[in-house]
């Protein structure tokens, strides 16, 4: 109890971004983080030499999903910025790899979660970062202890 809590978390009127509807987003991210992580560990451990580039990319995607899940689940300003960066990286990743695999299908020896815009996963990998960004931008961190926007629900609240 040495330090005082100076954060503006004492505004109960507005549901935080990791509560209510926001928990579903985190749940879907958690499913992708868990499954892509498990799959990546298996690929790297057993058949890495078969498609090194694809499996390294899978591992990177899994890491992005894990960071996004944990940061979306946490409260606070820092977590919001980490979420924004990781979800943006995810969007760039799925669009970039998606385009790449459509233009040059021979590049990767095996499919990744982001190949063909996530078609193998029902295009959820393409929709998820868009929803994530929309959620983050409508649930920005409160400005300061006395920020004017603190008590008012945002546009998407």
């Amino acid at each position, binding site marked *: 109890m040495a330090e005082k809590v100076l954060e503006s978390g004492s505004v109960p009127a507005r549901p935080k971004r*990791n*509560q*209510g*509807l926001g*928990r*579903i987003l*985190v*749940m*879907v991210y*958690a*499913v992708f983080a*868990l*499954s892509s992580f*498990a*799959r990546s*560990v*298996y690929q790297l451990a*057993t058949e890495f030499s078969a498609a090194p580039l694809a499996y390294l990319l899978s591992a990177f995607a899994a890491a992005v999903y894990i960071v996004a899940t944990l940061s979306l689940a946490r409260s606070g300003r820092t977590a919001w910025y980490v979420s924004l960066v990781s979800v943006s990286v995810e969007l760039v990743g799925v669009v970039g790899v998606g385009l790449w695999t459509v233009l040059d299908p021979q590049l990767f020896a095996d499919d990744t979660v982001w190949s063909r815009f996530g078609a193998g996963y029902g295009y959820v990998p393409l929709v998820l970062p868009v929803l994530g960004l929309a959620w983050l931008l409508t649930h920005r961190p409160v400005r300061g202890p006395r920020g004017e926007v603190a008590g008012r629900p945002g546009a998407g609240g």
Partner: protein
Amino acid sequence: MIFDAWFWAGTALCAVSLVICVVMTALRRFPDDASILSLAAVELFLLVYGIGAAFRMAGAEPVQGAAWEFWGYVLTALVVPVIAFVWAVTDKTRWSNLVMAAVGPTIFVMLYRMQVIWFG
């Protein structure tokens, strides 16, 4: 071949769980017992499926695909309902039920993959 009794039993459970959780999202403002019990049913099925698979492997019906991958899926699937339950009940709102609704479709997809690996 892939669509054996295991598959249909699991699919039916996942579908029932999804319907229950979605209905409870509309009806309740808290994580309903029916949603939680439907998760428990899915988890129980996965346990029985895993134990059954172990017996089948020990017996005359070995897994056709990679055993490592199969068990990776079983273990991962077993974790999903637990995560969903914990994440749902730590914020008791209407949306807790929808968090739990994510389990049914997820486990269905994983079960399908398990069946594909099992039959090679």
